[in-house]
């Protein structure tokens, strides 16, 4: 097993920059996710690691070994494709055995390894099935077994859950995570689904327009986004524009609307944001931090009329209008009365929940 290093990797298609100067070191055994909207370059980056594209600039290393120009069949990576790419003319067994046959393993050993892989993905006894006799979830697991059986240095997963229905997706998510932890294999996972990325990854690389936006743990990415794109792409948030009107004793006051000044902590700012009086900045407030105002709340109390009231079961979501801005708040359902549209709601925005994005 080895880590993967991308050294200033770029990929140009014609005149279009697909991937621009990606520089990242993925540690051995890490579960690393490329996250971003479609067309952000995440799949292109993955395909360069697999060897289906050669980078236009930069180097790719597996451990210390430069694989930049190595053809895909010499890289020993295991890849699971979005549509699984199972061989339709082969049985489940033959599909999984393919990579071992390529490596010219003796027959009994192939049989043993395939059986072990099948049981690893809970498909023992399915070896003789044809691919079209399997459900989507089972096909997915065959693809996973086929990629793992060759004992790859790196496991590459290209949106492996996107063809599954919601329930299976969750089940398979646990399954992939379990296998990764069990085998301790370096895993690179591509997805556009931030919930998937957050729940599975050790670290996430957020990409947009071919450019890396932020690399960090799920916690860092969510709580300390580097820029507006990351703040809005990961999770839901209220992004308000404002002007800093005062800074003292570690607290900054920001005017987000006439007569509406909020107080936040100076340390609670993105490194890209240097707070100065008079500076315009954006603040991000996560809906789940907001709570109903109590009579003794001193500042950061806002009042507004409810525009949307949404009861989802686990939570109640309100959108209110506050000083020309929309404010989305999420309350965990604890049996309180659900407010109706049009009612006035007083909300408290805790000081520590205000994050200066810059």
């Amino acid at each position, binding site marked *: 097993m080895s880590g993967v290093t991308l050294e200033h990797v770029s990929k140009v298609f014609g005149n279009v920059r697909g991937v621009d100067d990606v520089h990242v070191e993925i540690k051995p055994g890490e579960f690393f996710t490329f996250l971003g909207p479609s067309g952000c370059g995440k799949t292109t980056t993955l395909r360069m690691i697999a060897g289906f594209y050669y980078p236009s600039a930069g180097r790719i290393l597996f*451990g210390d070994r430069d694989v*930049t120009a190595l053809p895909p069949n010499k890289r020993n990576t295991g890849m699971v494709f979005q549509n699984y790419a199972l*061989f*339709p003319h082969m049985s489940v067994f033959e599909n999984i055995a*393919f*990579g071992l046959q390529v490596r010219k393993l003796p027959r009994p050993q192939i049989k043993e390894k395939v059986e072990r892989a099948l049981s690893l993905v809970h498909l023992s006894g399915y070896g003789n099935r044809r691919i079209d006799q399997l459900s989507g979830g089972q096909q997915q697991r065959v693809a996973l077994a086929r990629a793992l059986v060759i004992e790859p240095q790196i496991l590459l997963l290209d949106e492996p859950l996107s063809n599954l229905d919601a329930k299976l997706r969750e089940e398979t998510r646990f399954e992939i995570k379990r296998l990764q932890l069990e085998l301790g294999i370096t895993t690179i996972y591509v997805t556009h689904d931030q919930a998937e990325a957050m729940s599975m990854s050790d670290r996430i690389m957020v990409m947009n327009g071919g450019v890396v936006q932020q690399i960090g743990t799920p916690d860092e990415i969510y709580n300390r986004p580097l820029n507006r794109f990351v703040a809005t792409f990961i999770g839901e948030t209220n992004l308000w524009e404002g002007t800093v009107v005062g800074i003292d004793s570690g607290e900054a006051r920001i005017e987000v609307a006439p007569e509406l000044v909020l107080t936040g902590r100076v340390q609670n700012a993105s490194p890209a944001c240097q707070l100065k009086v008079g500076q315009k900045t954006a603040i991000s407030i996560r809906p789940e931090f907001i709570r109903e105002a109590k009579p003794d709340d001193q500042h950061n109390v806002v009042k507004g009329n409810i525009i949307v009231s949404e009861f989802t079961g686990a939570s109640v979501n309100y959108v209110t209008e506050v000083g020309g801005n929309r404010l989305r708040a999420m309350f965990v359902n604890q049996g309180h009365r659900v407010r109706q549209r049009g009612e006035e709601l007083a909300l408290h925005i805790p000081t520590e929940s205000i994050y200066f994005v810059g």
Partner: protein
Amino acid sequence: MKTELTKPAAPKRRTSLTASPYFVYVLVAPLYLILFAYVIYPLFETFLESVKADGQFSLKNYAAFFDPEHPANLEALWTSLYISVLSVILCGIVGVSMAFLLERYEFPGRRILSVLAMVPMALPPLVGVLSFTFLYSESGIIPRTLQWLFDLEQVPFSLKGIWGVLVVHTFTMYTYFYMTASAAIKGLDPSLEEAAASLGASRLTVWRRVILPMLTPAMVAASLLVFMISMASYTAPLIFGVDRTMTMQIYLSRTNGNLEMAATQSTILSIVSILFLILMRWYQGARSYQNLSKGISVHRTEVKSPLGRYLAMVLSTIGVIVLMLPIMVLVLISFSEDGTWTVQILPPSYTLDHYVELFTDSKTWEPIATSFELSFIATIGNVIFGVAAAYAMVRLKFRGKTLLDVLIMLPWALPGTVVAVNLIAAFSEPSVFSFQQVLVGTFWIMPLAYFVRHLPLVFRSTSATLMQMDGSVEEAARNLGATWWYSFRRVVFPMAFSGVLAGTLLAFVQGIGEFVASILLFTPGATPLSVEIFQRMYAFEFGTACAYGVLQITLIIIVLFFSRKLAGDKAGTAV
């Protein structure tokens, strides 16, 4: 693999030839070379010959062609054109109405009719025309039967001349309209009609505004196709004695030794055909109605009134008889004793000998062996070329793709007569492409002609299956460590195999039935089956000729059956 980890160092970037972005041109170069050598170069040689008179550059031949004083050539061009137009109209009427009846109505006899509607596909060109002369010509079975039944002085009708050509064209080519129209009708979402009806449209308006416009692309495509095939038609004019068509004029010029005129006529016919090919491609690119809705359910109107059912039954029976007669008459005559059938309605005496002779008499067996050999050689070439070209077209990225596509389709657009004349022009002298051999007058010119004529068949069926195959499947194989060749062998080829096989069988069986180019190229030492049938007919050996014909038809039916099976269990991606 673990061992690879210890391997020392980084390979330099793109040192290997195969990783170069230009390597793909090395791969596709042979394809272009073959097309150039055996399609373009012969076409060009024919053109060169056409602008030569007495060894010097001259447009004399073209002047002679368009000379109003001697209008034979212009007349031929005109006749070819109007036969083609009439063929399109007749095939359109027959094909579309059959498609509608069979797809939209449920009546007694519908099932059997819809199977038999494809029978004309099983008739090789020469054998099909012959069976029509047996049936409907002046001495044919049907006119003579009617004469005898009604005690007439003369036969009431007979098929000859241009009408003969048109009837044969209609019978053999309506299938193109029938197939495209029924596919289009099957694809029509009934809910579109229901939507139109709910918006207040009458049945007639629904037809005029919804159904016909949706069918137009399919109809135009079929029209162009039938027009092209009619222009290229050679066998029907030959047998019905219509000398003034382009193909016949080429044949006559060639047999009279006026090679320059033959070249001129060929060039003009090529230009017409190529124009039509371009027109077809342009039209296919310009218009196609993708059906937007999913899950189309066919609904057929059942014919319920007793009168309607009775009528449908009678008409279906007539339809079945008309469709089956050509094959039945061939089978019947194949059992007749040679030289005994003269003025009788049906052959008077029968024997099994012809079939026994086919496989025991070495002289009778020879043409069969020759045709198998010729077709086998040509088909091997077609498979290698077709699979390589299809893979290149579907999987590789390179400049000049459209050119390659057009060049491959070109031989298909060229009439067989023209292909033959081109090859004669190119290979009557030693050339690089024939390894400094003279090919004309040898055995080898024929497999070459078959190869060129059937060039698109394997290509088309293979690229169709390759296109259904997801590219990531090949990538998966490479990712698992397979080399390009290993993944081609174990994954790509097996998955495309049904398409390759279908095209191969078709090319092979077409080679067995090939007549148009063979008649111009064959040598006495190697007479292919169709030419032998033609000669036997003129030697009054109907029985043997028909036995050969039945053999061809049997082969075609077997192949059609298998191709259907292959198309049935498609090997697409499993998703």
